């Protein structure tokens, strides 16, 4: 008999010879019955249309659950990049120097981390390292400022013209172009100008105009006059006086037929422009015209 003859028989593949032998066996009858009955068996009803409908509905339900994850991934990437940028710039900005600036006709009082005080005059800039202040007291100055330095490490003011360093004192530094002036009000100040050190005791000033050094008399009060809203000059060329006048009153000046190098001694108010104009013009025998924010100075004896 063939191998798996029952399977062959069920599939009508049995050879005639084998079929003859097989049909004579006593089991044949039951086999025939099994084949006949199983052929008429039916599996439970299965609704293909409904299954397909279920499938399509399921498809719609599951898809949105999966797909929206991707846009968020993109969003998270962007958010991470922005966060990194913000954190990065925060730390970067933190390492930068602290900068303080005043405009024309403006004054600012600044208290440093060690309680030293700075009063910044009009149109001036300072910069310092806030984080390392206690180990390195170094200030860059462009303009004019009055310092009340608390006792501690060496306190240095760097300017384009020279360096001023102290241990704890009150002093004023003015550095404007060709004009460099340091006045000491308390303690001892060391001024390094062109590599040469000058020690300033309380009540002394160090002045450089166009590279010419002049030691001046002591300022009388414990602080510069501009703190009291007055600008004081002693034998200072008129052009520097006018420049200070421009800064304090936020005006522009022009001159006509005037020697701007003539020396000026006196003071003017930083609050009352009319009073200030008189204070400048009368001692210098000048006349002036005020039009809005423009002032013209001209010689009295002009034709």
């Amino acid at each position, binding site marked *: 008999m063939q191998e*798996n003859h*029952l*399977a062959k028989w069920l599939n009508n593949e049995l050879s005639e010879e084998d079929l003859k032998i097989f049909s004579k066996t006593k089991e044949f009858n039951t086999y025939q019955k099994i084949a006949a*009955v*199983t052929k008429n068996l*039916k599996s439970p009803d*299965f609704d293909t249309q409904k299954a397909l409908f*279920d*499938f399509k509905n399921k498809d719609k339900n599951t898809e949105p659950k999966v797909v929206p994850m991707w846009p968020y991934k993109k969003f998270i990437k962007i958010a991470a990049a922005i966060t990194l940028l913000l954190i990065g710039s925060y730390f970067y900005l933190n390492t930068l120097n602290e900068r303080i600036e005043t405009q024309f006709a403006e004054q600012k009082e600044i208290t440093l981390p060690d309680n030293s005080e700075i009063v910044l005059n009009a149109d001036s800039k300072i910069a310092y390292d806030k984080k390392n202040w206690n180990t390195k007291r170094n200030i860059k100055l462009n303009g004019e400022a009055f310092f009340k330095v608390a006792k501690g490490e060496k306190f240095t003011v760097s300017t384009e013209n020279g360096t001023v360093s102290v241990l704890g004192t009150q002093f004023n530094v003015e550095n404007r172009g060709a004009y460099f002036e340091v006045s000491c009000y308390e303690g001892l100040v060391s001024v390094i100008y062109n590599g040469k050190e000058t020690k300033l005791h309380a009540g002394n000033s160090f002045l450089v105009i166009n590279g010419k050094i002049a030691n001046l008399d002591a300022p009388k009060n414990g602080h510069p006059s501009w703190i009291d809203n007055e600008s004081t000059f002693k034998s200072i060329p008129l052009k520097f006086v006018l420049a200070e006048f421009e800064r304090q009153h936020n005006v522009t000046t022009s001159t006509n037929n005037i020697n701007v190098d003539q020396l000026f001694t006196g003071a003017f108010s930083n609050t009352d422009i009319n009073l200030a104009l008189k204070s400048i013009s009368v001692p210098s025998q000048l006349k002036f015209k005020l039009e809005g924010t423009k002032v013209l100075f001209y010689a009295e004896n002009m034709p």
Partner: protein
Amino acid sequence: MKPDTSNNICDESVFDTVFKSNSKTVYNFIYYKFGNEEKAHDAVQEAFVKLWENCSKVTPERAKSFLYTVANNLYLNVIKAEKVRLKYADKKLKTTNETPEFILEENEFKEKLEKALNDLPEIQRTTFLLNRIDGKKYAEIAEMEGVSIKAIEKRIHLALKSLREKIDGI
């Protein structure tokens, strides 16, 4: 170049055709295995979801065996402790000119046969019923299950043999 969608399961009409021609067999395949209609329904849904997800990788020719493999793997780890009790849809008797004795005898035989079928090893039962009820050819079942025709013949042979022994009581 436009992709050829006429021969691609990702094309909805092709997919629907595959679904219509295979879903019932997948259903029966799992049903014969476990005798559980719910599992069979779930298997159909799962298998076709997988097919849809992989529609670009599976060719229509391979779709059939892909579906059975997925359906089969789905319940690989299910403990087969439950006793299988297959139910068959009621078939109205076509002939009424039979004698009551014959009908009684027939029903008795059917009962015995059903019990014997339930006792068959799952692999033999599935193969045997796919052939008897669904009318699948041996070659077709072999392709579905990824085995040789000879292996299918062996299963049918053994199934018939043990059914006969159970019914006749040897």
